[in-house]
């Protein structure tokens, strides 16, 4: 079940000054990402890394552009500017990145190492080839299909191949039957991990909210992603369910080596499990570092406390930063 090429590097908090995992071994690099909708700048020149095997949190007040970043990374929006690099294989893979960028290619593969430029790929290929899976803020399950069917749909590409594009399956090739059985086993595995096994034959729309959230994660995991993007996975969960979610995410990272990028408002979840936190406000990155670093960043505090006026901030350096890097006028986060 574990993707072999991945090292389940659960990097402990590094020493100050030491190179950090997300700088030396990033699975995803977002560079100078800008997204405009008409005149509205939802994300402005954003750069950050997601370390391989890390749990990275993307946080920020409502309307900061977090979901827009997700949509750009997963190909649902075409970013106005910027480059998003997805790497399979350890290290920076600088040679491959340059090759694919200069060559105008979508991806380049060399042995078990590969580099994908996500902004050049259509959404379904990002999931299929670059192996980035995602969940949605407002849960998107196949409501009229059973829980088990939801997980079978997620393994579409594997099964499609095994069925020789349906024809072999129609003829009843043994290869397809084996693949179908394996797909069911994988579905059962994830149903057990997410404690949904008893609801396997119920329609997904029938599940309570928390179960639906977990099913969406299970469904995304059935695509065997290298990077799992979770859009507010803890929204609407009670504290016990939140704890369970934490455990599930830790399990996914530890057992499957999947890197996780999540948007979250629940600071309890964020601070407890994140190795790396990126803070957005009005489409601009205002802080980037480990949880402790971000927690004490005055700009972050200011953004979260919703300071109305710069004059109310007493810290001179924050004031200075805000007036330079702060809020460009006329921005609204309605898109995210």
């Amino acid at each position, binding site marked *: 079940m574990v993707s072999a090429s991945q090292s389940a590097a659960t990097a402990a908090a590094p020493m100050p000054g030491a190179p950090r995992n997300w700088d030396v071994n990033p699975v995803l690099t977002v560079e100078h990402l800008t997204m405009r909708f008409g005149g509205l700048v939802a994300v402005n020149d954003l750069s950050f890394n997601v370390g391989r095997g890390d749990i990275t949190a993307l946080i920020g007040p409502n309307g900061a552009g977090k979901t827009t970043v997700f949509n750009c990374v997963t190909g649902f929006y075409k970013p106005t500017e910027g480059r998003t690099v997805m790497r399979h294989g350890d290290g920076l893979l600088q040679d491959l990145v340059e090759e694919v960028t200069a060559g105008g290619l979508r991806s380049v593969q060399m042995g078990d190492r590969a580099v994908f430029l996500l902004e050049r790929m259509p959404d379904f290929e990002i999931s299929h080839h670059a192996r980035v899976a995602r969940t949605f803020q407002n849960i998107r399950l196949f409501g009229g299909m*059973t829980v088990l069917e939801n997980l079978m749909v997620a393994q579409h590409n594997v099964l499609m191949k095994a069925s020789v594009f349906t024809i072999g399956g129609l003829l009843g090739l043994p290869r397809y039957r084996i693949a179908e059985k394996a797909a069911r086993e994988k579905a059962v595995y994830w149903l057990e991990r997410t404690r949904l096994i008893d609801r*396997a*034959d119920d329609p997904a*729309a029938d599940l309570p909210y928390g179960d639906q959230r977990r099913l969406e994660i299970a469904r995304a995991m059935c*695509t065997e992603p290298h990077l799992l993007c979770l859009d507010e996975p803890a929204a609407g969960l009670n504290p016990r369910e939140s704890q369970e979610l934490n455990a599930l995410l830790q399990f996914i990272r530890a057992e499957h080596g999947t890197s996780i990028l999540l948007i979250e408002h629940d600071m309890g979840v964020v601070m407890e499990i994140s190795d790396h936190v990126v803070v957005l406000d009005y489409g601009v990155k205002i802080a980037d570092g480990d949880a402790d670093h971000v927690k004490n960043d005055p700009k972050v505090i200011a953004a979260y406390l919703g300071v109305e006026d710069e004059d109310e901030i007493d810290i001179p350096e924050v004031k200075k930063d805000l007036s330079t890097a702060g809020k460009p006028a006329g921005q609204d986060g309605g898109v995210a």
Partner: protein
Amino acid sequence: MAAETPAAPTSSIRPEGAQRSLEERGNAPVVAPANDPNSMANSVRDAAMAAALTFVLGFFFLGVRSDFAPGGLALEFRWGLLFIAVAIIFVARLLLNIFVFRTTKPLTQRMGSTFKGVGAGGGLGKWLGRALFAFALVLPFFFTSFFPGQSRQYIDLAILIMTYIMLGWGLNIVVGLAGLLDLGYVAFYAVGAYSFALLAQYFDIGFWMALPLAGLLAAFWGIILGFPVLRLRGDYLAIVTLAFGEIIRVVLLNWYEFTGGPDGISGIPKPTLFGLEFKRGEGGFADFFGIPFDNIHRFIFLYYIIFVLAIVTNLVTLRLRKMPVGRAWEALREDEIACRSLGINTTNTKLTAFALGAMFGGLAGSFFATRQGFISPESFTFLESAIILAIVVLGGLGSQIGVVIASVVMIGGIEMLRNLGFLSQVFGPGFEPTQYRMLIFGVAMVLIMVWKPRGLVSTREPTAVLKEKKRIGADMVAQGEGH
């Protein structure tokens, strides 16, 4: 829905001749203590308003008729007809008010619970399916032995119904499974029919050779037409497919040199049974088997051809539903964005559904051409698409057995009107029941839809089961793009 509450259905008037009984649904009125809406006075007032509206609506259509006369159109007044209609509406509305809408125990409640068994599908649906299949298998012999006098007529009707069942099953792949609303399905029916007719005319190709070619051509056209439009949202897709259907018809109509234009193509060859023709005398089917020639053999043969074609359609669909591509169709219907996030190429998935539906439409079209021996663009109007779509939706989207029931009820029921010659004894010799066929068809369409918006068989069967198979209620199942 909140919007419904202030509507106060009690104060509404429900008019118009043929549709009066539309009101099967009977919104139980919320009882207002001060003015009991169930009171007799209110019922009468409501019926009177319905009658008044009937008068208004009928005035220029029932009351007045313009007809040709020397020196232009002349008017004929039919006040009697108008007042009969108004009276019928008044009485009917009043009765409905008293027994259905404005009573605490509507009669329809009992009816509704009787029908629930069928609607829920359940084990009953399975057995119903098997029984229908068994009956369809022996149908020609059933009619030849029990109704020898009319067997030809009945088998012909069975062929017609079976054709619509096949078309319904074909369209069900597109609309019911993939959730793509196609209002131009008749285009592929036409492509199939014309492919065979033209292949026969220009290359002298027989039915069995042409059948797969026609299917492939229709599928090809499905891809050609589908490719540019499949990224459109539901309603827009519907209207573009309608446009394509009309374009194909107009081209068939005007390309006189190639298609014969409005004259159509005649002399389309009949199918043979391994080279045996269904003709009188030497070398024919009857001669070969040494049985006396009977025209009915050809009809029985045609029936079995369409029966096999339809069953193949059904089996392929049922099998595909359990394959990755079929699951992807249904997932697409449920949520396209989620599909894309799981790496499913939605364009290709839609195209396969479109092409496959088109192929079955094309096969049915070839059969239609060989059965009729003559085709013209007139057979492929939008109405035909509407009828096929109505069968699919009325039967219950995605339900195979529903298509069968809807075809039998709608097509069979309407064709049965031809047999109601005795009515002319009641309404006078000028009464021609067949001219009301489409009117009744339309009314039935509206009625059934209002009564059961999700169709007759609305539950969905899961395609993969872990422990226990549970049917999925219609309220969970999405209906396609964007909604």
